[in-house]
């Protein structure tokens, strides 16, 4: 039996997530810490931060400490018809922190389903994303967008590159006022403006979103969303999974369904994933892929409480205390299931529940 209280947050989380992923046949994927630098230069927009720690290997080759796991998994796989590679990973990666702007070692956990993927795999990864969040809190939600639909709607009203990139930005910000101004700048008519604004105003419960979308659009992607939604009706967490087009990933890499997970006590998204067939194509792979990463560092910051104790008992002794007395006191408490710290003085930062003073009193 594993005593979880002895585990760090990362160890505990990785252990729990691993058992979730293994249940669904995902196998652990282990890899080295280094990768050729070129891999990241070619695909730097795919990375959360484009800065990488690079160094020359003994043979002169420029190498990098891994800033990401997904690229390595894609690079090392093969395309075989009807076959899917289902893996999960739990690796340290090295990235520039968004807050300190310095390099940081971050534990990245996630899973990838790569190969001849289909609708079921998208559904399965979303369910596993939900189960992953359930590990940390009951109060979570997952929001799904369909990038193909977003792209089709935007380009159908105006396919100017600058318009498309600005429109996507405003949709991701739920910024209808600037989106409307953008439409005015490009002299779009009322009908087209309303069409595009729908992507900001429509979000939430899946069936409500679908019925509003159907009123405004006749697009094949809506049938895809409907099909996925019906599949998700069978999921244990159906009520926590919603549609929201403000979830946007880089369309050069991602396509189809993308999603993000939130916990009620964490200020930003803690899980991000989706289909990345475009990335696969860029890396000369012929098959599709879907997967997600869980940002344990963001969760840890919010979950790590400060109300716990370091030990149950603090035993204080001095040079005159009989050693047998100390050993007896410690052993008795440990046998009774308590944690004990024997010290000569009260340590400044130690949080203890009870104190036992074994010093002789004059």
């Amino acid at each position: 039996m594993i005593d979880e209280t002895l585990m760090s947050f990362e160890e505990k989380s990785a252990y729990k997530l691993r058992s979730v992923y293994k249940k669904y046949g995902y196998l652990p994927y282990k890899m080295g810490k280094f990768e050729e630098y070129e891999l990241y230069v070619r695909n730097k927009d795919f990375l959360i931060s484009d800065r990488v720690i690079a160094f020359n290997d003994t043979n002169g080759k420029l190498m990098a400490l891994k800033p990401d796991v997904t690229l390595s998994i894609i690079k090392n796989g093969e395309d075989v018809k009807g076959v899917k590679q289902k893996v999960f990973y739990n690796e340290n990666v090295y990235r520039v922190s968004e807050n300190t702007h310095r390099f940081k070692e971050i534990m990245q956990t996630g899973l990838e389903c790569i190969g001849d993927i289909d609708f079921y795999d998208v559904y399965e990864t979303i369910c596993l994303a939900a189960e992953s969040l359930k590990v940390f809190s009951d109060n979570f939600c997952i929001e799904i967008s369909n990038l193909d639909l977003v792209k089709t709607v935007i380009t159908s009203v105006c396919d100017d590159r600058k318009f498309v990139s600005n429109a996507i930005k405003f949709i991701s910000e739920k910024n209808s006022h600037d989106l409307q101004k953008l439409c005015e700048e490009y002299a779009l008519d009322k009908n087209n403006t309303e069409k595009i604004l729908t992507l900001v105003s429509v979000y939430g419960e899946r069936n409500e979103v679908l019925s509003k979308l159907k009123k405004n659009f006749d697009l094949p992607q809506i049938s895809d969303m409907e099909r996925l939604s019906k599949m998700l009706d069978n999921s244990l967490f159906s009520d926590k999974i919603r549609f929201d087009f403000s979830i946007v990933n880089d369309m050069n890499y991602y396509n189809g369904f993308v999603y993000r997970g939130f916990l009620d006590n964490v200020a930003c998204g803690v899980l991000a994933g989706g289909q990345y067939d475009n990335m696969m194509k860029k890396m000369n792979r012929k098959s599709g892929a879907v997967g997600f990463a869980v940002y344990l560092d963001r969760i840890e910051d919010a979950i790590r409480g400060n109300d716990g104790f370091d030990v149950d008992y603090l035993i204080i002794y001095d040079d005159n205390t009989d050693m047998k007395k100390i050993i007896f006191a410690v052993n008795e408490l440990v046998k009774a299931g308590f944690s004990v710290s024997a010290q000569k003085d009260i340590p400044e930062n130690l949080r203890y529940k009870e104190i036992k003073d074994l010093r002789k009193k004059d």
Partner: protein
Amino acid sequence: MLNIALPKGRLGEKVYNMFEKAGYECPSIKETNRKLIFENEEKGIRFFWVKPSDVSIYVERGAADIGVAGKDILLEYKPNIYELLDLNIGKCNMCVAAKKEFRDENIKVLKVATKFTEIASDYYSKIGRDIDIIKLNGSIELAPILGLSDVIVDIVETGTTLKENDLEVKTKIVPISARLISNKASFKFKGEEIEKIRNAMKEQVLYND
């Protein structure tokens, strides 16, 4: 309880008045004292004043669920938040200004003094102009007068300060106004309350127009 970060100063007072008229009043905020947080338990809201440039940080980090920040701050710091409503107050422009006689002949690197280094860099990179950014924290108008820079990039409200110092607006980069912003996770879990506030504030915006 919904935490609302308001920008200290004249703009913040206008914003609070909009909240009050929208039905989200908190009378204790008008009392003269050193309190930092003001609560209306019945309405489920808690206001606090912060430095205008810090509002987006409070909201992005979830210390505030919603807040009001100038578009200049949002363009400069690019916080990861939702921008829910243009409040149409605190209106001004982000401009390039210089001495009246200055003409950019595009033969040397342009020296640009500004507080808004991101906005200035974005603007000049879009038009393909090579610049040298000089980051200043105040009295930006002094820079071209003393020859520290060729131009400045700054907020211009009425243009009086520029005029009094023999400077003029050369280009308007982007219009600025106050925006209602929301933390992304708060919008997921307190969406109903936030939407109610946004809709009530929207009515105020329409009324003011």
